């Protein structure tokens, strides 16, 4: 299975994502933001970091990078595109998924483990996973998801919410919301479910010596789903 990770100026989780994808069997290529064409890929990942130093708005300048036209075309033709953290911010700025990501409610960068609940498994990312609640890791300053009431209705009607912040029992109450996100939303799909944007970093949870191993479950399942 072929994957591509895009490196923007200021990306800093590109290497970590490369390590994770290779560990679980992807043949991964690093792709430079200034390239015109994506290599042939089964999965394209926009990694975390601070593309363009978060100047203007997080993800805004990266969304106008040369490679993004190719990524957008790939997504529109049904290709799998996953944006993690800053990658999620780039996805919303490119219009590939709805909504915006605002500054965290408490105005602080937050780095910690969180629990997330998978709401909908009828998609190539989560289908066949045999549990619903995952422990992932977040590290961000602008992860406070927001959209208009009409958008939210559409998102919910289409089952586009990918994951919600919750506790270890799957309760999605406000007190388990680390950043003020609307309805505890931690990740979201496009309408067709081939594009996934999420704040948590599964690539930081791929080894029992790290913060946990739920990332391993996610990647193992993902490559099996794509095969």
């Amino acid at each position: 299975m072929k994957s591509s990770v895009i490196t923007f100026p200021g990306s800093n989780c590109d290497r970590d994502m490369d390590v994770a994808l290779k560990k679980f069997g992807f043949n991964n290529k690093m792709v430079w933001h200034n390239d015109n064409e994506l290599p042939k890929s089964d999965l394209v990942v926009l990694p975390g970091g601070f593309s363009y130093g978060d100047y203007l708005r997080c993800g805004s300048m990266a969304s106008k990078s040369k490679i993004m036209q190719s990524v957008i075309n790939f997504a529109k033709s049904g290709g799998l595109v996953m944006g993690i953290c800053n990658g999620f911010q780039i996805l919303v700025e490119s219009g590939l998924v709805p909504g915006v990501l605002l500054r965290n409610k408490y105005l602080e960068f937050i780095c910690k483990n969180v629990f997330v609940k998978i709401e909908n498994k009828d998609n190539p990312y989560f289908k066949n996973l045999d549990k619903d609640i995952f422990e992932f890791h977040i590290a961000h300053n602008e992860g406070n998801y927001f959209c208009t009431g009409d958008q939210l209705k559409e998102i919910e009607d289409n089952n586009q919410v990918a994951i919600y912040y919750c506790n270890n029992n799957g309760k999605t109450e406000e007190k388990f919301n680390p950043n003020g996100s609307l309805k505890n939303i931690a990740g979201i799909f496009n309408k067709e479910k081939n594009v996934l944007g999420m704040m948590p970093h599964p690539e930081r949870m791929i080894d029992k010596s790290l913060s946990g191993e739920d990332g391993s479950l996610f990647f193992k399942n993902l490559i099996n789903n794509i095969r």
Partner: protein
Amino acid sequence: MEVNEQIAIDHGLKKDEYKKICDLLKRTPNLTELGIFSAMWNEHCSYKSSRLHLKKLPTTGKKVIQGPGENAGVIDIEDGDAIVFKIESHNHPSFIEPYQGAATGVGGIMRDVFTMGARPIANLNSIHFGSPQHKKTKNLLRGVVHGIGGYGNCMGVPTIAGQTSFDSSYNGNILVNAMTLGLVKKNKIFYSKAAGLNKPVIYVGSKTGRDGIHGASMASASFDEKIEEKKPTVQVGDPFTEKLLLEACLELMAGDSIIAIQDMGAAGLTSSSIEMASKGNLGIELNLNKVPCRETKMTPYEIMLSESQERMLIVLENGKEGLAKKIFDKWNLDFAIIGKTTKTKNIELFFDNEQVAKIPVNTLVENSPMYDRKWKKSKLPKKIKFEKEVFSNLKIKGVLQKILSNQNICSKEWIWRQYDHTVMGDTIQKPGGDSGVVRVHGTEKAVAATVDSSAVYCWAHPLTGGKQVVAESWRNLISVGATPIAITNCLNFGSPEKEDNMGEFVECVKGIGEASKYLEFPVVSGNVSFYNQTKEVGIKPTPSIGGVGLIKNYKKMITMDFKEINNLVLIIGKTEGHIDQSLFARTILDEKNGPPPEINLFNEKNNGQSLLSLIEKDYIKSAHDISLGGLITAVSKMCIKGNKGIKIKRSKSLISEIEYLFSEDQGRYIIEIDPKNLKEVTKILNKNSVHHEELGIIIEKEMIINEKTKVTIDELKSYNTNWLTNFMSS
């Protein structure tokens, strides 16, 4: 402008220093030249008050590849890998402008590390603030934490450990010390020594602006009421540009184009060009019209003294200019050939086709002033005689609550959860442990790092305090199962022109030297920050020690959380009941006098090495060193982290219960073992003549002391976790 003595004094030079400049040049310097001298001869760059004493530190060892004198120290971690590391202060700018001051401190130390060819893999910091009641403390803390996070997070380097303290002696002078570790192949280390004639001198990175002019001079003076006016001397950081600079430099370093490289830190273009020329015993010629500037009409004086961040100076091999330019273009960074190396041994500057400065390099470096400042030796204070009733009237639980919630003991999670501590995917021990630990990517090895200081002990008796900090660093590394290798030091003191403060410096350095020599734990890099002083009041002497150690197999790393019910808990090292200068004496009894606990270096080494051998044999389930707050504080943290309790036996010791629980005798650790290994463990400790005793047994959810005091784990947690969050939101 004609230069005269008054202008020299306004530049922070002394009368006799100005006279020396005129004598060395055999003429009056022009303003640009004077600016260059003042930048090179200030305390921050010249170490003129400290050099004489720093020379006495042990700086060599089997594992030392590079000691002090380069951008950072380098140690061997086997298999062709090396760790580059250093700690540096950014105290003065952080007080004036906490966000930018702290951010550029982090940026500066990372640049020191990647200048040597190493990719930064971990950041640490030691930050000290005034009393929580002081009106500036909260804003300074918030600004500094945001600044450290803002820079390190954006760079994608995990912040894995740190230290925070509050003490009224920092009311007017906070301390911000930043440390970085980088990983490099032993045969790909880059140095700052220029070599060869007519080699192109290249400027890369950000453009030069007017920010930070005279920053190093500002950091070499005491503060007064006009300190706010110094804001323009604080640099402004751009971590995004630094991330690009890091990637571009490492890409260029993969080839063989670079002869020498030096980052533009304190005193910017001045010190970087002069250091490269001085180390290479060469001259250097620069055309300042070629320097990329972001403001118009900048003068040679401003260009040479700007401390704009994220800039590097490189001496390239001839013919590699095109290749280098292509890399910096790719990363959208400025690249300019601004000069060449020469045989003249002068620094010569040209601007608008005129020579604007010509100074022999040796006058700036070798002939810089060195002072043997007067200093006062301090006496060991007399031991305080505490009345037994004072102790017996206290309720253990109440005292424990006060100690665990003390601002210098409580959990600092509010701080470190704002730092990305997991990026790069190799952090296997995060902040809150004895040391932070990161794996050496793709190997079985891991590197442990800790940063420590004990200003109270250093203030009470500098010689003992100096030794203690090194010993504590050593213990923190051993507690996670790492073999200590070397240290870096950041020496924060008051004015060297005052005999008391100079005495504190001299004796702390002596203590650091004695301990690091005995423990074979050499000093490979460091930095001195004097003048942490507002008017007549200096800070408590605060040497920060950054220690680095190696874990050969990361799966053998130890953490402090209690692991299993019914396991035994032992104390290594003897508890003698030294209460003077303990947190208990200072906060509960309000007794601020007396000597700090004594350091027995033989015991430190023996106890530490014995524990390492137990770890090697897989006997140790958890370990934690005993430091501030004494035995019971250490045990409480192990309970909190492991979510388990302990039943503590009545001690056979003759000292009172309070002394047993809260004294701060040194050289001690708490360890958890499987009861089936007790015999073997005892045998090894006895064989090594290591004092040890059984403390108790791990139980569920409750700490029971001598069958009468009971504290639940939830109570311990509530004592320890809330202070900082409440303080910051109050």
